[in-house]
């Protein structure tokens, strides 16, 4: 379950920002901003993806690097939100 979610998130970022399907192009802990993979509008698109495709509402105060700046951080954030729901 967690692995499927992780790969779904990775696939979204690979396809939309790195334009590849090769999972080796993006490490699970790679910083999306630090590596220059997404910019401010890209992060907004990721938030839309989380809300619309993954069904998790992202509150204002949750939009912080600790929740969103890598595949693993997004996965953990989505899982914790689903558990809390």
């Amino acid at each position, binding site marked *: 379950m967690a692995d499927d979610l992780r790969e779904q998130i990775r696939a979204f970022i690979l*396809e939309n*920002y*790195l*334009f*590849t*399907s090769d999972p080796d192009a993006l490490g699970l802990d790679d910083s999306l*901003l630090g*590596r*220059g993979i*997404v*910019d*401010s*509008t*890209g*992060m*907004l698109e990721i*938030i839309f993806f989380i809300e619309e495709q993954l069904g998790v509402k992202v509150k*204002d*105060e949750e*939009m*912080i*690097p600790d929740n*969103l700046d890598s595949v693993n951080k997004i996965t953990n954030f989505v899982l914790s939100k689903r558990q809390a729901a």
Partner: protein
Amino acid sequence: MSTLLLEALRNSAARNPGAPAIVWRNTKWSYADLVSAAARVSNVLAARGVQSGARIALLMRNSPQYVACYYGVLGAGCAVVALNSHERANVLARQLEHSGAELLIADRDHVEFEPLRRLAAEQGVAVMPISLGDDEHSQSLFAQEFGASELSWAPAAPQDLAMIIYTSGTTGRPKGVMISHGNLAANTAAIIEYLGLHCGDRGLCVLPFHFSYGNSMLHTHLAAGATLFIEDNFAFPQVVLRRMQDEAVTGFSGVPSTFALLLGRCRLQDYDLSSLRYITQAGGAMPRPLIQRLRTELPSARLFVMYGQTEATARLTYLDPADLDRKLGSVGKPVAGVEIQVCDASGRELPPGEIGEIRARGPNIMLGYWRDPQATQQVLRDGWLYTGDLGHKDNEGFLYIDGRAVEMIKVGAFRVSPQEVEEVIAALPDVEEVAVTAIPDELLGQAIKAVIVPRAGKKLNVLQIKAHCREHLAAYKVPKVVEFASSLPRTSSGKIQRFKLA
């Protein structure tokens, strides 16, 4: 005559040496710190035998170290080539070569550092890697890398080249805007005057310093003796808003997409932004509903709508906040010292209400394009800068922008030449021909669309095209939409009709 930047910085440091000049992450550099760090850079350049007039390229994110290097380069009598830190190494290498830079000072942790270092070595350009410390040790680290701080700055003349900013051109022909010391001084003074900037101001900057808007925000704050907070992470607007609140920020500048992001996901009323004295907006037209919302949510801040371009150092006009309601949609009147006209194709000034090309003259107009007299002659004629923007004035002399006379896509505030993107895509072997155009985008104003005709019998896919673009271009230049077609729309004379592609 306006005070040149080096003198303005020294004046600010003399008036209040301990005042914070630049605050970035966990490091704070005072005016005295900044002057001594800049002096270190000047001394290193002198020790390396760099002659006055040499170009020194900088590749680093917004940071106090960038600022110290910038002023240090000027202090050595050299010119800054401010490289775009979003750009890829192959594009930067061409700019490096075109500028004839002797030395590249670069952040060793920048994602493009290693590939650019290799390319620079092939060109014989020396590279000085530095570390951007962002904690309390940042200054001692900088001192270790650069050495002594005795101040011996070479005097600059207003007409001397201070800076080259590369704007979008074709990949084979980089376009470097030459900005003089006098240009920077004049535009800095004009902006300080209308914003009323003073040493008590605390600006927050999310704009890159290597673009003209960020560059002007930097120099105006330093010349005013104010404090500039660098926030390099606009991906999380809430973090920025919290910092604005916690640091009692008095000024904030953005492009339309900055404000779309701020207003799109954040509730400004949740933050105490009562210290915010002014907001500036430039970098393209902001939709009127967004302007209205910004004013409703931040009623105490004065909103300055502005217009300019890199070729004019940064700023050409601003709309006085007092006129915002009655002149909504206008970019206002010229800044001090600048004259603006709307003219027809023969260069005749047009009466109010008629649309023509906007031209400008004043002490902020660039020296020309570096090593490109032909391109310079196209835009600098009879003492005027022909902006390539279409506009009109109303009966009271307020300027309105009506579009671009020159084909250029504006993604966010970034100018993108369609030809540059076309060249990159055309380099793929299975592409027969390609045309690139702008499409409307809710957040960014415009986005890029590419229409591609594959070679007979060949198949291409969207990801492959985008990946190829990303490999060779900055992320914002990658087409958002890629379509395939069997032919491109053309006029009877064979010219591609870009407007039919959108």
